[in-house]
């Protein structure tokens, strides 16, 4: 077609025909080959409201990006920083461009896979992981992440293939066995599931994520008791595997807010040493707030508790105390700081001081059942039973079926001589919590051995039934004593004495000689055909802690 200002009819027809053909061809062409979108510009995230250290970090990254827009390393590094702060959009753009520039560097495909998976773009994430795997077919982290994504997609065949490949490459990788166990579960192959999951737990006993699945496998195999046992051990500790590329991401994080959050995460996972490190970094980054000091103190205290070397433990506890005091200096009325410091003091047997801090915590957080409970325990230790009673009642108001608080309150009633109140509470509690052995013990003892002033509460037969049930659950010295009390109340003194003798033998074998005087007193009473009339002796640590 050439420029022609004098159009003739034949030329018009030609033009119309040509246009028609061109449109048709263009339409057919576009249907088959969609034009690739131009590379997306990196969307710099909104920095307003971020931790100043994070903002500075991201500004540095943005400057670098503006200087070197076609350097794969700069782009990839920037992507890592964005990934560390969960700016997934920016991270994905960086990795995408880095991968375009350096397509043979598997790192960018691998990281891109993670970012896309985080964003729920599963198909694209799978493609990115597959590309990374193509470049390094034996990389275990890539195999496992790919397989996990495939499992989520219910693509069991490919997931199994990749988990198997990971297991071949690194036979010690329990994550692959967990994956294979879950695939077998989905397929209803419970035997295979059990085998894989048990193998995983043998290698990594801490991997509680496998326990629940193993329980499901046993349930499928028709073994409910084993199933229950494993399901109850359910946890979220993952069967990890070395993943240096991902580990490098966390190391980039700056700023006190995120260090504090990382500290909390590791604290929750029971990794107190790492938690201490992050809380320290948070304080070094400028977090001069009560919460961070308090959390550092708690992490130090827990780390100290785990430490076997007494000198190191004492050092950590001492440092913990310093940070608790700093937290209270910043916020003297802080409920959480006072509560946790109170607990720290109570553990160190500084009960009177602990009481003060618990009381201060409750001024600001009146409905904290844990604080009421700890305060009540501390008050009991100080002999302030009447004050303790009120706080136990508060716990029960807030947590109606807190069995420990109910039992402790019953003991407090007994200690104050209010056997009727103790009986009423235990009877009610036993109706609501029939499986709780402490409450059943308390009730059985009052029914068997209520003092003469409350003889009307006694019911030896019921006490004996309860005691038998208790012994069927656990044939402990306490339960044998309770059973003997019930038998004595029913006039079966020989049987009661015989039980106590057996308990004494057991105690001697266990070298728990501190229990012998009490048992001996009981034995003498039964040998004299005299029933026991004290549910607990006044000097029993349960009654008088």
């Amino acid at each position: 077609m050439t420029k022609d200002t004098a159009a003739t009819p034949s030329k018009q027809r030609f033009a119309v025909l040509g246009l028609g053909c061109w449109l048709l061809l263009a339409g057919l062409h576009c249907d088959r080959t969609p034009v690739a979108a131009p590379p997306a510009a990196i969307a710099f995230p909104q920095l307003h409201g971020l931790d100043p250290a994070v903002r500075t970090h991201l500004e540095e990254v943005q400057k670098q990006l503006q200087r070197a827009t076609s350097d794969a390393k700069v782009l990839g590094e920037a992507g890592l920083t964005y990934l560390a702060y969960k700016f997934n959009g920016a991270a994905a753009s960086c990795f995408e461009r880095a991968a375009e520039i350096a397509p043979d560097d598997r790192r960018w495909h691998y990281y891109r896979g993670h970012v896309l998976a985080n964003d729920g773009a599963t198909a694209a994430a799978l493609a990115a992981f597959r590309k990374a795997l193509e470049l390094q077919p034996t990389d275990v982290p890539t195999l496992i992440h790919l397989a996990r994504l495939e499992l989520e997609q219910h693509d069991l065949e490919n997931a199994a293939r990749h988990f198997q490949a990971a297991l071949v490459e690194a036979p010690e990788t329990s994550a692959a066995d967990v994956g294979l166990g879950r695939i077998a579960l989905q397929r209803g192959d419970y035997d295979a599931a059990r085998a894989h999951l048990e193998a995983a737990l043998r290698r990594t006993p801490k991997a509680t994520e496998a326990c629940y699945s193993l329980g499901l496998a046993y349930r499928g195999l028709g073994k409910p008791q084993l199933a229950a046992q494993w399901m109850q051990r359910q946890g979220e500790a993952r069967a990890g595997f070395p993943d240096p590329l991902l580990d490098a991401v966390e190391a980039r994080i700056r700023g006190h807010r995120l260090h504090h959050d990382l500290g909390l995460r590791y604290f929750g996972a029971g990794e107190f040493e790492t938690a201490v490190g992050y809380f320290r970094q948070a304080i070094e980054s400028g977090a001069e707030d009560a919460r961070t000091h308090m959390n550092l103190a708690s992490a130090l205290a827990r780390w100290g508790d785990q430490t076997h070397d007494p000198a190191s433990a004492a050092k950590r506890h001492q440092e913990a105390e310093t940070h608790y005091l700093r937290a209270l200096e910043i916020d003297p009325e802080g409920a959480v700081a006072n509560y946790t410091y109170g607990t720290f003091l109570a553990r160190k047997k500084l009960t009177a001081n602990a009481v003060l801090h618990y009381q201060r915590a409750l001024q600001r957080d009146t409905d904290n059942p844990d604080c009421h409970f700890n305060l009540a325990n501390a008050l009991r230790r100080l002999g302030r039973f009447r004050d303790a009673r009120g706080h136990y009642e508060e716990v029960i108001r807030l947590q109606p079926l807190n069995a420990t608080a109910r039992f402790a309150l019953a003991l407090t009633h007994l200690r104050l001589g209010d056997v009727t109140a103790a009986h009423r509470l235990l009877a009610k509690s036993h109706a609501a919590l029939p499986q709780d052995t402490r409450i059943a013990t308390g009730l059985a003892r009052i029914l068997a051995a209520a003092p003469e002033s409350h003889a009307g509460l006694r019911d030896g037969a019921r006490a004996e039934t309860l005691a038998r049930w208790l012994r069927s659950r656990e044939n402990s010295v306490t339960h044998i004593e309770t059973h003997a009390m019930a038998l004595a109340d029913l006039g079966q003194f020989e049987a009661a004495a015989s039980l106590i003798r057996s308990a004494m033998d057991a105690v001697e074998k266990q070298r728990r000689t501190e229990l012998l005087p009490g048992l001996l007193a009981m034995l003498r009473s039964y040998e004299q055909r005299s029933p026991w009339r004290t549910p607990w002796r006044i000097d029993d640590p349960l009654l008088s802690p």
Partner: protein
Amino acid sequence: MVLSDSVKTYYARRVQNVNQAKEMPLRASFLAPAFEPADKPLQHAAACGRVARRAPFHPPQATAEKALSASLRHVWPADAYARTRPTPRPNRGASVAAQPDTGSGEHCLFRGLSPRFREIARPWSLAYGSLAYGSLAYWSRAYGSLACWLAYLLLTCGCTVETPPPSAVFREVASGLDFVHVNGMSGQRYFCEIVGAGCALFDYDSDGDLDLYAVQGAPLPTTANAPSDVLYKNLLIETGELRYEPAVGTGLDAATGYGMGVAVGDYDSDGWLDLYVTNFGPNQLWRNRGDGTFEDVTATSHANDERWSTSSCFVDYDQDGDLDLYIGNYVDFRLATHKPCYSETSALDYCGPLSFRPYPDRLLQNQGDGTFVDVSAQSRIAAEYGGALGVVATDLNGDGAVDLYVANDGTANQCWINRGDGTFENTALLAGCAFNIDGKAEASMGIDAADCDGDGDDDLFMSHLTGETNTLYLNDGKGTFDDHSMASGLGVPSRTLTGFGTAWFDYDNDGTLDLFLANGAVKTIEALASAGDPFPLHQRNQLFRGVGAARFEEISATAEPVLQRSEVSRGAAFGDVDNDGDTDVVVCNNNGPLRLLLNQTGNRRPWIGLHLKNTAGRTVDDARVEAVLNTGQSLWRRARRAASYCSSNDPRVLLGLGEHSVRELRVHWNAQQTERFAVPALQRWHTIQQGRGEVVQ
């Protein structure tokens, strides 16, 4: 072929526009007009942003969106303002990839073509148009520009229509529901701002149509003139037209707590439906006097709970004929102990539930004299708990006694099996429904129970947080469950969304249960925040179609334009509001307007509607209907109000029959009584009364 420079430039610009349009769907109005309610005559009603009953705001000329924003601005300071609106224009970059294609306009050239072809062709139509324009511009030198412009318009824009696709099932209508929820956000990121609220579809005046109760939030801290919940009366029976108007003089203007949810039930057995409203603060029991008014009987009935409650339900757990009350309590958050939480980007964000202590739930036993007694301890309900957000009551182990399943936020769920002696036992762990298949506690929000696999027992579905997947537990009939989320196709599509209100319902009456999910995040969505969105939590809702064998397919937003909206949805109530034989949906948005999604096409398939009543003529909330089909298979449906999230549903049973016919109809009233009824006529609602059928042994 050689194009002139000006034509090339124009072409390049148009192609760029097309690319931009793909990135910024709602900005490019020629591609996708912002969705407006199709019910034009009702648009004015939608403009009335109902923040407070006592002070409605009625801008005469405003559009719905403008009115909404104006009304919110009227009440809240600018920094607190966050209106619900279409997806904002995101930054250029990878983050835009997550935005759905919102094109509801359809080019006439592509009508009748397959959706796949249309999907590919739609953006290209503009490019073709531009190219055509280039050619035509060449001709225009000879024939003048006007004809060429006309031709261009014809090829590109002239045929664009702005109606939903003809296959769309739901259409949003205003119908007078001008309610706008306010969450009281002030920039402090108080945890309670992002949690509520729900609504209830129920017939408060017993006139035969579904009225609506919308639960309202409040300023934080609450003030004396807080807005109240709103009861809307349905005028369908009176006027023959679906239209809601606020019921006046009901006494409910005193329901001014920071509302969360609502349960419906006739607790005093007087034939009138009462309301239990849960709040972030003291709850309220509203007794329906039967004369169009309600009285607050919270104190006299001993039904109060000062703690933060969410979903609740009326249930006759002791089978004594009156309705008891289960109250799901959430966590110990108080404004006074508010603490800052940060997102993984280090920006201030909302806290999660695990930052606070959970509260135990409560079970109140109805004494039959208008009062309740707290039996949480005796029944053992209070023994185990997490932060409860959802609750359903149904028989999960097939023993005839109604059980309870509680969905907790971030902790193990509870499956309370009714032992028939006034106590419950939590079997969730061993039953396999406390955690997901990987043994992880999930952030369960909304929940529903129904027989989704057609084996006669109720299966459980619950919605979860972004990063988790929604979970489907299939019941083996004995109360033991298998996590079927991945195989069902319901898991993966939910990973990027946070689900709240949900329910099983057969939207297309094909005899297979489908699912709707009201979604909205609880943590800042970074892409939205970066785009400057003032309330960056909004997400699209989802509709899943059951395809049989407990498998589901997501319905795309292209097919269902109502799913293109991105809002912070929470509660959702389900029922046939226009009595036309299909299930409609009311979506409650946090800090946004209520949406009524009217089902347009469900009733094209055969259906039978059943309103179950007991011997006293009162609506039955918990019976099961078994329709034996001509194939010999049974279709099981359950009358239930409590499900979803903080909401209450139409308890009537709608049997969608698809290609089948019903051979026999049985109603399982309770464990003791099953009756057989004559198969009623199709395409109609029928009342089925207990005691009038043939007793089945």
